[in-house]
Structure formats: structure tokens, C-alpha cells
């Protein structure tokens, strides 16, 4: 029985319970991840991070949330009131929605009902996630626009440009997964990874997805939208109190959501790592949730690690990287993957497949060598031109002239 059939039989109350669970899990994960991030970044900078509120500072995020809620809620006079209020709501709701199609566990029993911890299973689940992510951009751009202020507008434009361009690379990186899994439904993709994770088989896709998910979530080193030195707070500069808290929540839920998607598509979802498959039956199948969340947390750790290590990119470098590197590379990769897939599906002999794969590798190496040579030549050309320019120069000081006189081998008397 597939997951789709399994959860298709869910009664209404079970769906409600699951929706509630997904929501609670998201919020708790967010609170914990805010705390975890601050602690981790702190340790990376050789300081302890928040450790005052509660044991190990665990309640810090909650305390911050309460503090934010008690702050005065300002709406600037120049703001477009309705849009200003709607924008954070869009941001916060959309990021929760993408969690609906993420399979958190395999088949389990919940209140005596056989089901799987996945709210719903769409045949186009991954497309749905991408669509929701795009709607989330509205939150950002509307917030920037409706604030009636310059910095939010610039920040909003920046982050929407960023999110949109990285979404293209992200979408393209997923195509090869679709090709291999033969499905766009998240549960089918997880099921297709029982033997090999796509993070290994389709490593280039995984790498591209990993990079673009950082760009997509506006996180360091791609957090140009919140470049404090240039744009103050970016699109949420004018927001305060709960509305700001919503954006804050959205940012972290988004991180968890893209990490969850990456886990689902590339790291085998709720499946146990190789050789630990027997653990999947522990606790009546609930143990798979632990695998799922540990994988998500690994992604989250990488997010924090990136933030602790890399400086922010310049905007033009960032856009150049997205459009001139990530997108062409993913398109080429899709061509390769599609060809390989068609070859193997049509039962082409192994030799042909291997020959094609090695041809591609050789081609890449040849292009790379040519590229390096051109770079070297260009550098040499620059060194060759290091002579004096041909245009006239200002007069050198007299002192230098007299040195020239003494060095004058032709014996011309200069005085």
C-alpha cells in the first residue's frame, strides 16, 4: 500500500490532529533552532551564547518572543495599512504550508489508526512546495513596498530578486530527481530511495540544491536582503512587535522547511542510513521520525556553520553566481541525467552508458583545461602590457633629471 492510499483513508479528526502536530512541531523546532543557532554561532566565536533564561538558556527564544509581543506595534504613517498587515501573515503562513507534504515517518499507528505522519500526499507535491515558496516572496515584496520607506523597498526588491533567481536553480536541480524517481510526489521519491540516496547518485543536483536553498532562505552568506550596513533591516525595517516576530518565525520555519525538503529529496527522507535499516521498525515505526529530524538538524547545523564562517557576498557576485553558474550547470546536468536515464530505460548495453558517462567527464575536463589556459594567457597578457603607457606623462621632478644626466652614456652635455 502506498503512502498516498494509506493517508487517503484518514478520517477527518486524524487530519486535524496531524495538522496540529505539524504546526506544533514547526513552532517548537523554530524556537529550538533559534536557540541552537545562537548557541552554536556563539561557540564558533568562542563565547557561550545565551545561557541565562532557563537551563542552558533554552527558554531564551520564548522569552524573546514574549518580549516582542509586548512591544508597541507601530505602523508608519506613510505605510499602506492593509498590505502592511497582510504581508507578514503571508510570509508566516506560506512557510508552514510547505510542511504539509513532507513525510515525517513511515507507516505508523496513531490512536489505533494505521497512517503515516504526512498531512497530505499530492501527486505533484514538490511542485506544490515550490509554488508555495513563490507565494512566500509576496510577503517579502509587499512588506518592502507597503512600508512607504526607502530601505525596506530596496531590501524587498533585493530579496525578491534573490529568491526568484535562486528558485530557478532550485527547481532545475529537482528535475533530475523527478527523472530518476519518476514521480513528483514526496512519498514516492522517498520510497524510490530505499537502496541509494539521491544525494549520492545525483550529487551535482544535491550540491546545487544545497547552495540555492541558502540563497532561497536569505541566509548568510547570501543574506543580502538584511545587509545591515547597507539596508538597515531590509524589508522588515519598519516592522515591530508581533508583525516582526512573524517575519522572524517565517525565516526560521523556512530554513526548517527547505532542510526538510532536502532531506526528503536527497537524503532518503525518514529512511535510516545504510546498514541501520532494522531501526525503522522500532517503536512501531515512529523511530523513523528520529532519523528524519536528525537529518533536518544536520542541514540546520550546516546553515549555522555557513553563517559562522563565510562573509556576505556582494550583490553582483551573488547574482552572477546564480545566473551564470548555477543555472547553466543545472541545465547541462539535466541533459546528462536525462540521456543516461533514457539510455538505461531503453535497455542500452552497459558499455554505451559507461561510454557516455566517461565522454561527459572528458568533455568537462577538456573545457576546464581550455578555460584555465585562457585564464593564464589573459594574465600573461596583462603582465606583458605592464610597460609604460604610450600617452604623455607629467614631468618628473628635476632631481631625477640630474640622475639621468649623470647616467647619460652618450656624453651629451646637459649643462
Amino acid at each position, binding site marked *: 500500500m502506498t503512502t498516498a492510499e494509506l493517508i487517503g483513508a484518514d478520517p477527518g479528526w486524524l487530519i486535524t490532529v496531524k495538522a496540529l502536530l505539524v504546526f506544533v512541531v514547526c513552532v517548537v523546532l523554530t524556537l529550538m533552532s533559534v536557540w541552537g543557532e545562537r548557541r552554536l554561532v556563539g561557540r*564558533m566565536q568562542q563565547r*557561550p551564547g545565551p545561557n541565562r533564561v532557563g537551563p542552558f538558556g533554552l527558554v531564551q527564544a520564548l522569552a524573546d518572543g514574549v518580549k516582542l509581543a509586548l512591544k508597541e506595534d507601530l505602523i508608519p504613517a506613510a505605510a499602506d495599512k492593509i498590505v502592511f498587515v497582510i504581508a507578514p501573515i503571508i510570509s508566516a503562513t506560506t512557510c508552514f504550508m510547505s510542511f504539509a507534504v513532507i513525510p515525517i515517518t513511515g507507516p505508523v499507528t496513531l490512536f489505533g489508526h494505521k497512517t503515516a505522519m504526512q498531512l497530505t500526499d499530492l501527486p505533484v507535491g514538490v511542485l506544490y512546495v515550490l509554488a508555495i515558496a513563490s507565494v512566500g516572496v509576496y510577503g517579502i515584496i509587499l512588506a518592502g513596498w507597503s512600508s512607504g520607506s526607502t530601505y525596506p523597498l530596496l531590501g524587498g526588491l533585493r530579496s525578491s530578486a534573490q529568491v526568484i533567481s535562486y528558485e530557478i536553480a532550485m527547481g532545475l536541480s529537482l528535475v533530475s530527481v523527478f527523472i530518476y524517481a519518476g514521480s513528483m510526489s514526496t512519498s514516492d521519491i522517498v520510497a524510490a530511495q530505499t537502496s541509494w540516496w539521491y544525494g549520492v547518485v545525483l550529487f551535482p543536483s544535491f550540491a546545487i540544491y544545497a547552495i540555492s536553498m541558502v540563497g532561497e532562505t536569505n541566509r548568510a552568506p547570501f543574506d543580502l536582503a538584511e545587509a545591515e550596513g547597507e539596508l538597515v533591516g531590509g524589508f522588515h525595517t519598519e516592522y515591530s512587535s508581533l508583525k516582526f516576530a512573524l517575519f522572524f518565525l517565517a525565516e526560521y520555519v523556512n530554513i526548517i522547511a527547505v532542510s526538510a525538503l532536502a532531506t526528503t529529496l536527497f537524503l532518503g527522507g525518514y529512511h535510516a542510513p545504510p546498514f541501520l535499516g532494522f531501526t525503522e521498525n522500532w517503536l512501531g515505526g515512529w523511530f523513523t521520525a528520529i532519523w528524519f529530524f536528525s537529518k533536518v538538524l544536520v542541514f540546520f547545523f550546516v546553515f549555522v556553520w555557513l553563517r559562522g564562517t563565510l562573509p556576505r557576498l556582494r550583490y553582483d557576485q551573488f547574482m552572477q553566481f546564480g545566473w551564470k553558474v548555477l543555472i547553466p550547470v543545472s541545465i547541462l546536468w539535466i541533459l546528462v541525467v536525462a540521456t543516461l536515464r533514457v539510455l538505461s530505460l531503453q535497455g542500452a548495453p552497459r558499455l554505451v552508458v559507461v561510454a557516455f558517462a566517461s565522454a561527459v567527464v572528458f568533455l568537462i575536463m577538456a573545457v576546464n583545461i581550455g578555460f584555465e589556459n585562457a585564464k593564464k594567457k589573459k594574465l600573461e597578457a596583462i603582465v606583458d602590457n605592464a610597460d609604460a603607457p604610450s600617452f*604623455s606623462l607629467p*614631468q618628473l621632478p*628635476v632631481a631625477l633629471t640630474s640622475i639621468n*644626466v649623470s647616467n647619460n652614456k652618450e656624453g651629451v652635455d646637459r649643462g
Partner: protein
Amino acid sequence: MAEIEPLKNSERDLTKVEFSQVDQPGSVGLLGHLKGFWITFSTIFKKPETVEYPEVKAPTQERFHGRHQLNRHPDGLEKCIGCELCAWACPADAIYVEGADNTEENRMSPGERYGKVYQINYLRCVFCGLCIEACPTRALTMTNEYELADDSRAKLIFEKDDLLGPLRAGMLMPPHPMYPDMTDTNYYKGDVTQAHPSQDVNK
């Protein structure tokens, strides 16, 4: 000697001029990037440098500029003579001094004058220590105390009472007369080492 004519550009062999080549750091390879990641990762397991401040107080350097103190002579008389040099030296205009005459009935310091009103405004003070350098009697010095936060402006203007050093062993609370047969010069020379019983007039 005739005037030196500067060379014309065409006469200079500019192609031979050496342009100094500066080594650029250039781009780091993949390994260089990984090194950065390794640094942040390994730091996680190092001991944080943080001092948990309110519970743990790291001692300051010996000559740290903290709160001021008005010192006393070994018999308890104040060292301050109300000369206002500290106030004049202060770049932040943080000190206010009002001097007054010492009388036989009301003697606070050896010599003619003493500081009647002495205030330091810690909202203005920048802890530069120029007042300490200016003081001719070493009446004003600085302690290592740095916990000077408070919740109102008035509380941060320290009066003479707040600044005066404590009475130590052998000291008597002024006003009281000077040590018998000693002048203010003896005081400054350090000839007075403790109070004389005859000085104890307040008993």
C-alpha cells in the same frame, strides 16, 4: 653651471622603467575555503573566553582608571586643599570644587584651605586621569572600582562624602587640630604617621 633643463618625455626611456610588482593575495583554492570551515568547527570545542560577569568578576589591571577617591593624611585630615586644579584640568568639565578657609575650630585639612564642596559628575567623566596628574597634594587618586551604573542623573553626581577615603587605623575624623608642632610642610613630607592624642578633640 647652466640651468638644468628637464628631459623631454621623448628623451626618457620609459620602457625601461621598472614597475614595482605587488604580490596580490589572489583567490584561495578549495583547500583554503575548507580551512575556514575547519577553524569555525574546531572552535566549537574550545573553552569560551567569556567571563560570566555579575557572578564572576575579573580583576582589572593594577592601574585601571576607576572611581576617584579623596585621600586623607595619616591622622585623618583631608589632603584636598580646594585649589580647583583638578577641575581646571578636567577636559570633560566633570569636577566642581568650592574651597573654604580652615579655622582653628573647624580644621579639615592642614594649611589654609580645604575643599568644602567637591563633586564629580560620572555622566561626564571620561576617566582620563588628568585630574589626578593635576592634583598637587595627591589628594585625588583613582580606585579600580568600575561598577558605576545607576538609574538617575542625580545619583551619578558623587559628592565629597561618596568620594572620601575611609578612616583607617590611627586616623581621627576631622575637623580636628593639626599634629602638635607640625606645619603643613611636615604633612606633605610625610612626617605625620598617625594621629596624636591631643588631636582627639571630638571625644
